[in-house]
């Protein structure tokens, strides 16, 4: 019993110190390696695993529960006023600019805008689906594409397997097999838009297009702030996300809403079966990165003799991000 108590005392005293020293050495080594290779300082595999094993889903669900709690009237101007000044919310654009209208933080977060405060560009073939910051954009014809300058993610890990057996049999790259036009006249492109906490958190359709399949990838709820997106490769393949694939008049089209710690839930108005940020138990670190399951729903109901569920016009309201 003496020996056990001595060992316990020793471990309690020195283990935290040992972990800190190990973390510091790992951090310095990684910094040295990235300076030596001239590559951007991104997370190592070890750092990525440590980050993924944090209990972020529990935190996200607790935050969601708190945000949905009733906000007493006397507190509303102070709490929403503080949030608005902290995150530069333009409350004059909101449909209800009186703070007292919102009975919870969650309702304030998903506030609708006044009619006409966002003008949909009639001439452009593709418009912004959301208010936010352009993280990155450009060609997406390689298997690895950039989430921000210098930090990439795998297009196949992000979208999942090709939809048809014919596509997967084609002797060409995944990105080329995605394309619906085979005459070489088209390219794949991508655009990544980050929504900050103070932004309007409903999102719209960027063009006229028809989704035919929905994939919901369970995953982590890591932060997707520009800092983390510039540090953690494959971030968008690790996070929980809802992906709609289909076509527009130039070929393949996909639209993905990626969740984050404080905004873990995605609500798509035309897809009531979609449930996100579900409790997945204590499977801490259960997945090696970017190998998450996903559930798939064919939206093209023509196969069941009905009309397809949904065609979006440019500017149509698609859904919203919810807190927690």
């Amino acid at each position, binding site marked *: 019993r003496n020996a056990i108590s001595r060992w316990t005392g020793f471990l309690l005293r020195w283990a935290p110190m040992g972990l800190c020293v190990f973390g510091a050495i790992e951090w310095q080594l990684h910094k040295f390696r990235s300076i030596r290779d001239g590559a951007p300082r991104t997370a190592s595999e070890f750092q990525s695993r440590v980050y993924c094993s944090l209990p972020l889903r529990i935190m996200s669900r607790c935050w969601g529960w708190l945000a949905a709690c009733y906000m007493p009237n006397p507190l509303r101007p102070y709490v929403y006023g503080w949030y608005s000044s902290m995150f530069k919310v333009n409350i004059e654009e909101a449909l209800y600019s009186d703070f007292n209208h919102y009975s919870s933080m969650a309702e304030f977060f998903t506030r609708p805008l006044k009619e006409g405060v*966002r*003008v*949909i*560009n009639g*001439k*452009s*073939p*593709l*418009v*912004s*689906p*959301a*208010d*936010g*910051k*352009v*993280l*990155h*954009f*450009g060609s997406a014809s390689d298997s690895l594409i950039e989430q921000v*300058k210098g930090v990439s993610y795998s*297009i196949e890990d*992000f*979208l999942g397997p090709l939809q048809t057996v014919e596509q997967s049999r084609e002797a060409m790259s995944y990105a080329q097999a*995605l394309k619906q*036009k085979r005459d070489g*006249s*088209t*390219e*794949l*492109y*991508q*655009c*990544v*838009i*980050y*929504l900050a906490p103070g932004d*309007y958190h409903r*999102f*719209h359709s*960027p063009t006229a297009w028809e989704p035919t399949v929905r994939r919901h990838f369970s995953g982590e709820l890591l932060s*997707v702030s520009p800092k983390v*997106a510039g540090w953690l490769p494959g971030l*968008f393949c690790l996070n929980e996300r809802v992906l709609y694939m289909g076509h*527009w008049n*130039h*070929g*393949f*089209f*996909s*639209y*993905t*809403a*990626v*969740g*984050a710690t404080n*905004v873990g839930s*995605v609500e798509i108005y035309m897809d009531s079966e979609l449930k996100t940020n579900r409790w997945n138990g204590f499977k801490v670190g259960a997945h090696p990165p970017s190998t998450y399951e996903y559930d798939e729903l064919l939206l093209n109901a023509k196969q069941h003799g009905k009309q397809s569920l949904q065609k979006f016009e440019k*500017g149509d309201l698609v859904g919203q*991000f919810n807190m927690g």
Partner: protein
Amino acid sequence: STIVLLFEAPKNFQFDIVAGQTIKVGESLGHI
């Protein structure tokens, strides 16, 4: 939270944006 658009477009598609800019719903992302 983040929205990622991945799409096929003609080779002469040109983006009208720059990385880091703020953008609002409905503003043009690109033209053909």
